[in-house]
């Protein structure tokens, strides 16, 4: 199964980024038998947009065929896209590798509503 995590850095030891739409990197992980079979780290080009970052970021990861999203906060528009595509969103913090471990061990709870407001290019 394919999962994506919003990341502050470009390694599996980076911290999960609290923002989904404007995180600097996305870490795509291929999981098999609760193990990471392979992973791919991609720059998030939506982060520099003036507006609509949540939507374009959601579109980008959805097009990569993910079945779940691990992130800090998810805003209303990105959440709506994932909800309509039936892609589950799991809030999580800490290191990417730890977050994946928690996910495969079913320790994370998916959300049924956006967890954060729409944010823009500000310093938040």
């Amino acid at each position, binding site marked *: 199964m394919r999962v994506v995590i919003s990341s502050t850095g470009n390694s599996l030891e980076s911290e999960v980024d609290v923002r989904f739409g404007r995180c600097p990197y996305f870490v795509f992980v291929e999981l098999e038998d609760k193990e990471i079979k392979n992973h791919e780290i991609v720059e998030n080009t939506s982060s520099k947009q003036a507006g*609509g970052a949540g*939507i374009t970021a*959601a*579109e980008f990861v*959805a097009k990569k065929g993910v079945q779940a999203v691990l992130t800090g906060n998810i805003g209303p*528009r990105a959440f*709506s*896209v994932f909800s*309509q*595509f039936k892609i589950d969103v799991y809030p999580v913090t800490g290191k990417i590798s730890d977050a994946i471990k928690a996910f495969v061990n079913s320790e994370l709870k998916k959300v049924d509503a956006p967890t954060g407001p729409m944010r823009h290019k500000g310093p938040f």
Partner: protein
Amino acid sequence: MKIVVTGGKGGTGKSTIAAALAYELSQRKKVLLVDADVDCPNDHLILSVKRRKIKDVFQFIPKFNHDKCTKCGKCAEVCKQHSIIFVKDKYPAFIPDTCTGCKACLVVCPSGAIKEGKKKIGSIYRGNNFGVELISGELKIGELASGEMVSETRRTAEQLESKIKADVTIIDSAAGIGCPVIASITGSDYAVAVTEPSPSALNDLKRVLLVIEHFRIPRGIVINKHDLSKAFCKKIEIFAKKNKIPILEKIPYSKKVIESTIKMSPINVHNKEYGRYFSKILKNIENNLI
């Protein structure tokens, strides 16, 4: 008879003058004032009107029928607003926020899977005070279709115009020259361009005059707060003369105007000496149109 009050630059006194003109005229004619600044309507404050909502305004949004959808993705392809997201083998996702109702998706769908839905983009209010009937349009925060909201406000005003048998409709437009201003100017019989003696105001005045001239509407200029700069006021008068645009009146700057705005009444209600400025403007408009 429809008079639009515009001017380009914000803060020159459009609403102040539109409300005062409406009050002046209401003493002898039936007047309808239309607040077409749907982003930030103020006329109900200047006239101390207790508005009541008379309708909500809606805009098209697509309604997707998954039974008919073949997941071809054409709707997302044509959506310029990025409101429709398509991913292979999934039904399209739709985000209503950025949709401006162009209906391209409905037109392009080959399977008839898109029908007409709606979302609220604003409301229209009505009220009256000081003998002036007011129609006020207000855009819902975050919505993009300002121009459409102005058009709907004007359509509602038109209906009320016939109902109350208004002699004159005064349209208070927004600042700038964008869609909401264009939607305010179109179909008017006369345009009053309100300006003030400053380079920014003259610059913006020239731009809005180009819009007015596109519609070939007779126009005149009101130089508000004219005594703030004698020199620049002269510049505006020279510009007007060169372009054969009449100066309808020059109104001096006065703290009394600000005070009456704060007390929520048009300047000429409690300061009768101001009446002459507005009756002069109305007289000059009348002469221009003969």
